[in-house]
């Protein structure tokens, strides 16, 4: 039973975006860039994605945010956030979902601009930045997305120097499909 999932799914595309510093780009933009690049790597169209797995430091509803940003209507999703191990968890969830036929193409995605956004975790409140100026009654006026263009120290308070930034500033995405996946062999880009 413990090996039911072994060999049942494969990572068929993987990509990063903006690793290092990415001033002027938001977390969801980095995530989106990595997602598109991973799909490109796999030769799979964005519209084929029907499983979304995501967790970030800035999205309270990460699977929803990714689906909204990329225009996806996933059949299955998971936004479990267990910190930096979220994506290993998502690999398991995705493999299980693929095995059970809950989805056919799983997108596991992450994005962070924490390094250039000021080196601190920002609010999990996530109003749509282009709608905030119109003062929806459900949002307070001080919950705008931080978007800054300068790099600042990313050391967590009390950490030793030199620190490595966490979460890493990047979009990181893997695309999984069930095996066999012959129908996805052809590269489209």
């Amino acid at each position, binding site marked *: 039973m413990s090996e039911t999932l072994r060999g049942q799914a494969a990572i068929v595309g993987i990509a990063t975006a903006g690793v290092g510093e990415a001033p002027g780009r938001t977390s969801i933009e980095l995530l989106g860039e990595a997602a598109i690049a991973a799909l490109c790597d796999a030769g799979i169209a*964005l519209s084929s994605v029907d499983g979304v797995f995501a967790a970030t430091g800035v999205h309270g509803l990460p699977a929803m945010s990714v689906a909204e940003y990329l225009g996806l209507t996933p059949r299955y999703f998971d936004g479990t956030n267990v910190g930096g191990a979220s994506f290993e968890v998502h690999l398991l969830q995705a493999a299980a979902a693929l095995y059970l036929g809950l989805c056919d193409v799983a997108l596991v995605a992450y994005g962070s601009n924490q390094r250039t956004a000021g080196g601190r975790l920002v609010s999990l409140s996530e109003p749509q930045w282009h709608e905030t100026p*119109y003062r929806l009654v459900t949002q307070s006026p001080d919950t705008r997305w931080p978007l800054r263009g300068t790099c600042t120290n990313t050391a967590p308070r009390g950490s030793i120097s030199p620190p490595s930034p966490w979460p890493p500033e990047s979009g990181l995405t893997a695309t999984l499909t069930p095996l066999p996946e012959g129908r996805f062999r052809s590269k489209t880009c």
Partner: protein
Amino acid sequence: MVDRSETSGPEARFKAYLAEGRFMIQRSRSTGRYVFYPRIAAPVSGETDLEWVAASGDGTLYSITVNRTRDGNYNIALVDLVEGPRLMSRIEGVDTAPIGASVKARIAALDGEPAIVFDVAEKATR
């Protein structure tokens, strides 16, 4: 000044254009489809060949509601641009307006930041 550096993302570019007094939206070179809000790829279809083009500013009122507060009333509207995308905004100068009214975009300062607002177009008020 618009930051056109390679590192600048769609959101930052849109805001920079707006600060210059320009209402710019994205359009896919291959499909001609317009995209708003600004993104790194067209939603659903995923094209990344998005270029910035000036929006006409012409739109139709799709939906509107009025928020009534102690500090005064203001409306929140959804406007369909003639280019296709639907966006949230505000119809200025009126409490509310009829669904389907023709509206015209301009850039105003909301809470000190430039934002797209709309006025009811002349032809709709006759």
